[in-house]
């Protein structure tokens, strides 16, 4: 039953370009990109109990590497993509060594600090990053001779990559390793006594999460064909974190729902509600008051209760 629903959902996503205009297709593409990014953050926040306020470091790093190598070094798209993924993953391993010296608020701050250092570099290291002007002029590569310039073709590619990302991140969360990870979140001390190397589990998760953030970064930069230091700002990190928490941290659907909500409010509802920032704030407060674990767990509970009432 659940599988049928999932397939229907994916089929529904796949036909969006056939039934709507470019604007909505682009909106859907952005939701998918934000969802991949939120899912990667969710591995840390939801499953690992490690609240990061600097996850854009990896999205931004991979986007900048791709834009820089493509436009300034002129390397082929596949090489640029490969370099972005490899370098970002290596950097996440290095940053993980530093960040995982702390947990809790310390971890939050150190991830914030790392992303702020990268943000500062993006502004200041203008010979590479163009500083405040950002890097423009990136073109989308073609795939097996198919151009990705149209909104719908890029959407479909994004959809396929997002589905892959979702499957691989879901498998990670539900694997034996994922169980261990959740154990370290809930009872780190006991996990050590049970023979788990808690630090190593967290570090591997940090790297895996960094890799998927890099994938989101590539989608982001090819979608926008432009990268600017604001992609590395605290606000961007906070938005992703809020998406994860609002949707439901530690659930597979939560980050997707949260990302959709945030992208929708920011880019669409803002056309009708002048004070959309305030609306966003009120929605967050309401979510916390009504569904303290986030939307997905909250709705699940509601459905269970309604079913219970019927029987």
């Amino acid at each position, binding site marked *: 039953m659940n599988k049928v629903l999932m397939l229907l959902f994916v089929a529904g996503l796949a036909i969006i370009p056939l039934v709507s205009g470019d604007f909505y297709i682009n909106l859907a593409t952005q939701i998918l990109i934000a969802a991949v990014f939120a899912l990667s953050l969710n591995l840390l926040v939801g499953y690992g109990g490690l609240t990061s306020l600097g996850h854009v470091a990896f999205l931004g790093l991979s986007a900048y590497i791709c834009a820089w190598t493509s436009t300034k070094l002129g390397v082929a798209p596949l090489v640029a993509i490969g370099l972005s993924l490899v370098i970002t993953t290596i950097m996440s391993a290095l940053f993980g060594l530093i960040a995982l010296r702390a947990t809790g608020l310390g971890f939050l701050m150190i991830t914030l*600090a790392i992303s702020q250092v990268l943000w500062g570099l993006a502004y200041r290291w203008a010979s590479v990053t163009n500083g405040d002007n950002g890097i423009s002029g990136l073109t989308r590569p073609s795939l097996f001779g198919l151009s990705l310039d149209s909104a719908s073709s890029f959407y479909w590619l994004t959809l396929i990559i997002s589905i892959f990302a979702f499957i691989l991140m879901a498998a990670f969360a539900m694997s034996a390793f994922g169980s261990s990870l959740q154990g370290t979140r809930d009872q780190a001390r006991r996990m050590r006594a049970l023979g788990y190397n808690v630090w190593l589990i967290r570090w591997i998760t940090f790297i895996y999460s960094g890799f998927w953030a890099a994938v989101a970064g590539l989608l982001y930069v090819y979608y926008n064909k432009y990268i600017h230091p604001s992609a590395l700002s605290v606000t961007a990190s906070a938005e992703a974190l809020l998406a994860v928490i609002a949707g439901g941290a530690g659930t597979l659907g939560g980050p997707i729902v949260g990302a959709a909500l945030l992208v929708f409010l920011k880019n669409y509802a803002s056309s009708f509600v002048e004070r959309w920032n305030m609306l966003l704030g009120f929605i967050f407060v309401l979510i916390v008051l009504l569904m303290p674990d986030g939307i997905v767990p909250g709705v699940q509970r509601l459905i269970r209760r309604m079913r219970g009432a019927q029987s």
Partner: protein
Amino acid sequence: MQFWVVQGLNSLALGGLLFLLASGFSLIFGLMRLANLTHGAMFMLGAYIGAGLMRSVDGVSLWVAAIAGGLGVALFGWVLERFILRRLPDNPLGQVLVTLGVAFIIADACLLIWGGDPIPIPAPSYLARPLFVGGFAFPAYRLVVVLIALAAAAGLYVMIERTRLGAMIRAGVDDMQMARAVGIPVSRLFSIVFCLGAGIAGAGGVLAGPILSAYPGLDADMLPLALIVVILGGIGSLMGAFVGSFIIGIIYTFGTALLPDLAYIILFLPMIVVIAFRPQGLFGHVSA
């Protein structure tokens, strides 16, 4: 010579300003284990309340405005704690969501009420002139900020170390379960401390006004600074917040002057080093 004297005084002034910002955050975190991400917005709200008051009512002095800003934000803090945060003990992610959400609301409300242009907060006229320190001109008001920060630190120290309320706070910081067990009214204590922390932030916003002004974005500029100070000094330690403020003041002031290329990251590098090698901060006992 002039460089060192003036920048030294600048470090102190920035340190004093940071203490007014961070002490409330530290107090709240120490007792409630709550990272109040609304803190920057509360600081800004205080600044706007003060600026609005001084602008619309003639003859209101900075000191009266600071008290008004402090009380106004404390009241706001009371509502926030009483009706929202109280429902979220042991839900750190929910706390992150709600405190950031409220920060969004405050920021947008300030923009709506006071507009997008910066509003100056004048220093009292007798402090608006520069003072000559060893032959070098230095703004008199900035020196007063250092004095205010010292007085606030002393006041908080006395409150925490010498009063009944302080004793209860210390008990709660050390061991919450024990405090509950011996009959300390923990939820009332939380309300009081949250109000107090919010009030200090609000008053701090007004007192920082003659230096920073009230402008949109002040909240986002200040929140990371509060976090840096508290992390560096040690979470929940008043002493840590105090020393942390002045260390950051020195690092920032001399760092940007001597190593201008590092201006963007000068605040974050020391923090990374401190957390990496001393996760509990310079003065903290508990790990961050």
